[in-house]
């Protein structure tokens, strides 16, 4: 079973390291919050997936060598952690970009900005609601 080390584990580890390094390099090379978010979130998610795949292949190899039940438990827990990471990372990137736009940071190199009109409409609706509430109180 030791051929699996060379065929699967080393490429997965190398891919995970390279993609994670690209993500952190993009934190330093890009100019804007949105560009940094674009680089860092995608790359760190994909790199973590590759690292977890390497560990899963290692556990399957240990199972083949007579490792016992604990490697099945390890695989199940790693898959659970991976699901949590996938859902959490994408949602938190969404929330952070929304918060960054609404806190007044505009994208530097963008040509067209369609979210501004939507934000304006939403703000007007909120103001109308607040005024209606004030009138009720009075």
């Amino acid at each position, binding site marked *: 079973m030791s051929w699996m080390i060379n065929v699967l584990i080393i490429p997965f580890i190398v891919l995970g390291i390279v993609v994670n390094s690209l993500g952190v390099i993009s934190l330093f090379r890009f100019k804007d919050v949105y560009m940094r978010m674009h680089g*860092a979130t995608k790359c760190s998610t994909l790199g973590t997936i590759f690292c977890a795949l390497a560990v899963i292949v290692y556990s399957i190899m240990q199972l083949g060598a007579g490792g016992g039940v604990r490697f099945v438990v390890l695989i199940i827990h790693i898959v659970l952690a991976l699901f949590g990471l996938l859902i959490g990372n994408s949602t938190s990137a969404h929330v952070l970009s929304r918060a960054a736009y609404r806190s007044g940071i505009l994208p530097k190199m963008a040509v067209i900005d369609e979210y501004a009109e939507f934000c304006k409409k939403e703000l007007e609706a909120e103001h109308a609601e607040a005024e209606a509430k004030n009138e009720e109180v009075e």
Partner: protein
Amino acid sequence: MTFARSLFCFAAAWLGVLAFGSVLRMIQGPTDADRAVALDTMNSLVIAIMILLSAAFDSILLVDLAIVYGGLSFVATMYLGRYIERRSR
């Protein structure tokens, strides 16, 4: 078997260096959103390190810690986004 474990240790050390790099961005970042993005990157790097070390040191406890850490970092990022959004108005 020992070779794969040392490989996992090497990868975990490399990812630790990368996490330190994202901490540098967190110190340097011009706006608060930059710092939040760097914190998010560091969280997923720490989860990857925990998964790798659980295979290297042969303990399932570290993967459980990674699951809990992922949930807590998710909630923390949600509140950071809320804070950044609310403070500017």
